[in-house]
């Protein structure tokens, strides 16, 4: 696969604050040993936003932490509008009142607000996200819909919500009539040290989550999105198996091509550190105020190395020797590899089809 590096990023993730009103058990953002949790003052963000506009960045994705907790959030959003950009917003929903939804609508530039909702009922949603977090998330979706702000939902799959996925899907797609929602599962991002093994899906649970989601995907075609997690893996693993059965490699695969972000996207941490991606928060490329984003984009060696990662063949790794899927595999997310192995330039073990098949076999199971 040949990737082209854009002259400037098209999209920039801004982690506007490290503050959050929740403390979800699985949160990759909080308690990262390699990250300093300090918030930049308004003027620093305003200067960066102006620079992004001048660099013709088209869109920013606002997150954190909980971006809406910033008292100056609408000053920053006004600056985004004046700088001729659009924005997306990721939120746990708690701060989204009817008034906030209306203000977002009035900007005329909001692509979409993504609310995190992990279940159809408080007992399920709150297993990981904490007591009292369900009702505000649901209310937020309704406020955004009433204000006609495009809204979507991210469901993070874990052992405690697999059986509820059909009910969650009904709630989101039928009752609330959302056009679509996306799914992922808890992954070891940032620092793996903080995660207990019990947070992750076991091979059996992972297979069950795949089957439930693929059934729902068939029932609601095109309305359940996934770029990672059980549904994405189900689709990718089947494609890899088909490729192997047909003796045809998947074009562009066979190298570490799982991460395309570094070609058109960059991220900025709450403390002003430029990072390649929110999944690689410890890879600091420079600091706001010390270097310009555009210089970092063009000159940072770490970023260049990540782009060069796409040229590394899976055949060069001991752990991939003799694997039937080598020419159809992408090696997956650099963030997963860095977190689990301490090296971004390796295939990420959490998305390895061969080891998943072996783990299933040990449990007397197989991928259908």
């Amino acid at each position, binding site marked *: 696969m040949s990737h*082209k590096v*854009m*002259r*400037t990023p*098209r999209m920039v993730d801004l982690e506007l604050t490290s503050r959050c009103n929740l403390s979800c058990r699985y949160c990759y953002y909080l308690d990262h040993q390699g990250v300093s949790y300090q918030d930049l003052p308004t003027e620093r963000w305003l200067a960066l936003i102006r620079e992004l506009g001048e660099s*013709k960045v*088209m*869109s920013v994705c606002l997150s954190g932490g909980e971006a809406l907790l910033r008292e100056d959030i609408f000053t920053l959003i006004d600056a985004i*509008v004046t700088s*001729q*950009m*659009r924005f997306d917003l990721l939120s746990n929903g708690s701060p989204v009142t009817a008034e906030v939804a209306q203000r977002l609508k009035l900007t*005329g*530039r909001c*692509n979409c607000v993504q609310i995190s909702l992990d279940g159809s009922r408080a007992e399920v949603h709150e297993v990981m996200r904490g007591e009292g977090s369900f009702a505000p998330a649901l209310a937020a979706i309704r406020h955004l819909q009433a204000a006609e702000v495009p809204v979507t939902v991210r469901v993070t799959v874990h052992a405690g919500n697999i059986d509820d996925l059909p009910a969650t899907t009904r709630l989101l797609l039928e009752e609330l009539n959302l056009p679509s929602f996306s799914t992922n599962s808890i992954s070891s991002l940032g620092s793996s040290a903080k995660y207990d093994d019990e947070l992750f899906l076991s091979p059996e649970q992972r297979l069950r989550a795949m089957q439930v989601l693929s059934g729902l995907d068939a029932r609601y075609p095109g309305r359940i999105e996934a770029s990672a997690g059980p549904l994405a893996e189900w689709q990718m693993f089947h494609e890899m198996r088909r490729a192997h059965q047909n003796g045809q490699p998947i074009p562009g695969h066979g190298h570490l091509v799982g991460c395309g972000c570094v070609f058109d996207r960059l991220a900025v941490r709450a403390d002003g550190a430029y990072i390649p991606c929110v999944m690689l928060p410890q890879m600091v490329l420079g600091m706001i105020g010390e270097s310009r984003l555009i210089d970092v984009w063009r000159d940072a060696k770490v970023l260049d190395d990540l782009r060069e990662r796409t040229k590394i063949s899976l055949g060069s790794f001991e752990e991939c020797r003799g694997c039937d899927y080598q020419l159809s595999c992408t090696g997956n997310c650099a963030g997963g590899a860095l977190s689990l192995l301490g090296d971004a330039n390796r295939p990420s073990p959490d998305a390895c089809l061969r080891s998943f098949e072996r783990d299933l076999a040990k449990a007397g199971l197989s991928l259908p």
Partner: protein
Amino acid sequence: MHNNLLKIDLDMRLAVNPNLVLRIEDDDCALLFDPDNGRVEILNCTAVEIWQQLDGKRSLHEVIGRLEEIYDGFDEDATRQVLALVNSLAGLGAVGVWEQT
């Protein structure tokens, strides 16, 4: 601002829509982005050249004159293509005669 463009002719002094963003991607292409609706159009390098000349002061006649200087063998056919391109940009609301309202 208001676009009162009706019909393109060579004496018009067209300007680009100041609300749009031109993002040069590489030597062959650029993206024209409308932040108000998120729409993106792809422009090739000739279109970018034209875009950069439409400053509201030069007539289309003059713009074509400049293109003739830049490109060898710029003939009547090329002029027709430029007009077609300007027409389609005008259809998108990307260029026009802009008035303060």
